[in-house]
């Protein structure tokens, strides 16, 4: 632990008194040191694991500021936190790894990747609702009456006050605009 800067004790004691600048300086100075110590302790860990361990150490340090005694060196305090939190992170990784399956070799279209049988229908319906929302109010009203609520032309004419012919033309145009809004090209 000879790498400890003499200022660390002063900074950490000042941080306990609420000095944000000293605390920031300590954390900035300790960050590369923590990364190096983590790589030394867990040489087989991936880069992201090392960053997670360092992050957990920083958070645990923040919660445990009250535990530091200014008469003691800072490096063993930081390293002690890292050993305990790092071991916990590694244990969690191993526990999760036992329940995980690598998906790299599974085709994207595999049925195993579907979360539930209605998933595709639900996604399509949500996309169509969003597209209807982008149409004009008149188009939305026509589609709502004739396609969603499935009223007859005569019923829709009575509700809206439009003629049956106007409703037919309006429906044709609204559907064309809906197809366009959903990115579906018309086949001529």
């Amino acid at each position: 632990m000879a790498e400890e800067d003499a200022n660390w004790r002063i900074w950490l004691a000042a941080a306990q008194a609420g000095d944000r600048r000293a605390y920031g300086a300590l954390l900035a100075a300790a960050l590369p040191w923590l990364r190096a110590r983590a790589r030394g302790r867990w040489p087989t860990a991936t880069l992201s694991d090392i960053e997670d361990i360092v992050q957990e150490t920083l958070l645990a340090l923040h919660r445990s500021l009250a535990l530091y005694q200014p008469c003691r060196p800072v490096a063993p305090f930081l390293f002690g936190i890292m050993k305990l939190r790092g071991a916990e992170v590694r244990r969690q990784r191993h526990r999760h790894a036992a329940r995980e399956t690598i998906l790299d070799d599974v085709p994207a279209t595999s049925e195993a990747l579907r979360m539930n049988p209605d998933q595709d229908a639900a996604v399509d319906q949500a996309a169509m609702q969003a597209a209807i929302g982008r149409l004009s109010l008149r188009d939305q009203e026509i589609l709502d009456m004739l396609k969603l609520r499935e009223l007859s032309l005569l019923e829709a004419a009575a509700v809206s006050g439009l003629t049956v012919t106007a409703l037919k033309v309006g429906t044709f145009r609204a559907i064309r605009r809906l197809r366009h809004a959903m990115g579906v090209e018309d086949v001529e």
Partner: protein
Amino acid sequence: MSNERLITALADELSPVYRAPAPARLTMWWLAVTVPILALVTLMMGPRPDVLSLLLRPDFALDEALAVLTGVAAAYAAFCAGRPDQPGWKLLLPVGAMALWLGVLGRQCMSLSVSTQGGALRLHVDVMCVPAIAVAGIAPAVAMVVLLRHSPMFRTAHACLCAALAAAALAECALRLFHRADSFATMLVWQMGSVALFTLAGSLVGRAIIGRAQPNGLASHVES
């Protein structure tokens, strides 16, 4: 969130903290609360009529001293366990003290069994030991939980086990002043069994209480 940004966020939300007392000082506080309570419990339960002559007997005094030693070592280890910079050997102090205590008790049991031609080995049912240890140990255990909850901590399971052992060891020390066992084997099995039971139960309860008190408010910083 990257660690560089995390540092900035942590520094921005820093607020002053009360420095936690050192483990030795916490142990002294705990003893200052526990010893008068155990003295009171002993007086309320009625001390044995021969308590003064018992305390003058070297073997009994040694048992009591080792119970106190185990209790103090376990309390100190419990407070050290919560500190990340405390060395591992301090956490094992109660193991050594407990081994010494059990070793001395075992040796006394063997020598007594020889001198009484097996009389010391006769085992009697002494169910009262269990509630007596619980009554004597509850106040030290509560005091320990209060002191341990004072600050965030690490190695919670170890701390709780040591804390419960500390309470049970001092309770056993007090128990022998007001409760008489019919034979040494009865004392060894029922009283020390009660100590073990109290230690395990106290450890589980303490872990549940202290584990719930652990601060978790910074989890949002981990989200990226």
